[in-house]
């Protein structure tokens, strides 16, 4: 794999514009190379390439004197995380989380607030996921109460330690209704502190009353809107995740040589550079 003379050309670029355009073309190169390397199975070359790229970007940041906003190209790029890359490259990965029955969407969020959304309608799941992501929450969507319980670790744990800050669930679902799910959650000592919000398209006062009595924080009428999601913020308690060391703080450690110090428990992600 050729090592492009990234460092020197970037350092020499006199104008910030040129520097940024160089950096953005390297970002393009990164995504292009990433695609190439998914086909290959050279894990080490991926690491060394990314190290070079991270170094290049660090030098750009350090050398830049402009007080302009970070241009779009240097903002977090959405690329595959390691486990996805390795899975698609056919490598086995003991870390690879097999969430086949759960749709998981990872967003580079600063607060690591993780919301679990439960709805049997695929359309409503998409809506609620998008709405929650506007508040930069990490969202996991499932299509049934049973799957929700699995994710929460009660029955047949998927081997994941997840700390959920909020559960938002539809009321009318086949199998287990939202109310039944609420009851199960409140009966479990490990989970009863998690705030639960119920959604429904039907305005039935008895239903609403029962849910609130059982411990739901709020009952939201569908269709859910942005204003409703804003209100949820007051219910969310963001807790520190002691079993997920990588998510504690978003700051990255850089050694004196500009190389990122790798945490063994952490999956390197190109996208989340902290801009000083």
């Amino acid at each position, binding site marked *: 794999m050729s090592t492009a003379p990234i460092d020197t050309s970037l350092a020499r670029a006199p104008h910030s514009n040129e520097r940024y*355009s160089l950096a953005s073309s390297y970002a393009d190169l990164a995504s292009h190379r990433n695609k190439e390397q998914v086909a290959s199975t050279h894990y080490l070359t991926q690491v060394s390439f990314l190290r070079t790229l991270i170094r290049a970007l660090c030098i750009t940041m350090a050398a830049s004197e402009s007080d302009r906003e970070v241009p*779009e190209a240097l903002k977090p790029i959405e690329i595959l995380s390691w486990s996805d890359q390795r899975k698609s490259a056919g490598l086995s990965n003991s870390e690879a989380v097999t969430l086949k029955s759960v749709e998981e969407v990872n967003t580079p969020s600063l607060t690591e607030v993780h919301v679990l959304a439960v709805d049997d309608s695929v359309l409503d799941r998409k809506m609620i996921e998008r709405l929650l992501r506007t508040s930069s929450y990490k969202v996991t969507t499932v299509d049934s109460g049973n799957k929700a319980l699995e994710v929460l670790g009660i029955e047949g744990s998927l081997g994941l330690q997840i700390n959920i800050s909020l559960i938002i669930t539809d009321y009318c679902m086949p199998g287990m209704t939202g109310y039944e799910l609420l009851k199960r959650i409140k009966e479990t000592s490990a989970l009863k502190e998690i705030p639960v919000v119920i959604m429904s398209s039907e305005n039935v006062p008895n239903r609403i009353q029962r849910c609130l009595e059982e411990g739901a924080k709020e009952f939201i009428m569908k269709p859910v809107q942005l204003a409703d999601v804003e209100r949820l913020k007051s219910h969310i308690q963001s807790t520190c995740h002691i079993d997920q060391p990588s998510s504690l703080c978003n700051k990255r450690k850089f050694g004196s040589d500009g190389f990122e110090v790798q945490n063994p428990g952490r999956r390197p992600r190109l996208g989340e550079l902290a801009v000083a």
Partner: protein
Amino acid sequence: MEVVRLQQQLIELTNSLFQEGFLDDQFTQLQMLQDASNPDFVQEVVNLFAEDSERILAELTKALEIEPVDYKKVDAYVHQFKGSSSSIGAQRIKAVCVDFRAYAEAENREGCRQALQQIKQEFFLVKNKLEALLQLEQQILAAGGRKKGGDGLQKLQQADVANTAVPFNLWACCQQDVSWERAATNANFCSSCA
């Protein structure tokens, strides 16, 4: 100007959809959720709605053909359909669903059949109109205009960084070069053409 003509068409189509009650405020909410990081959100939602609805309509047709009709099942499907159509803002479909549920509760088979016919008609109507709407937006993009969603400013930033000619750095109205300051107002037409 091709783009201006297309944009006029889009405005007229959108207005008629709202005025004739095909769409309600929820659709506007959807459009607001579309931005630079989710540029195809409305299209994706419409696609999901179309797929999901076709599935439900097929199930409903089947459920009403068998003997005896399981009205609880019919009611459950209609409830689903009502939910998804209200999530997308398809107002007229929602209204027919209400009637349909009343027929199902009364176990009125003929009423249910008629309601199903009506729902199918309304569904195909709104689906075609939404597809026309989305197609117009695509045409506007291709002709050099900007997509609705207020992401024009970000696109301009990208153009500046990459230093390449991107269709979005020209005003749609007069195809003049957009300066940074004018774009910052996020207006759809430049001040001289507006």
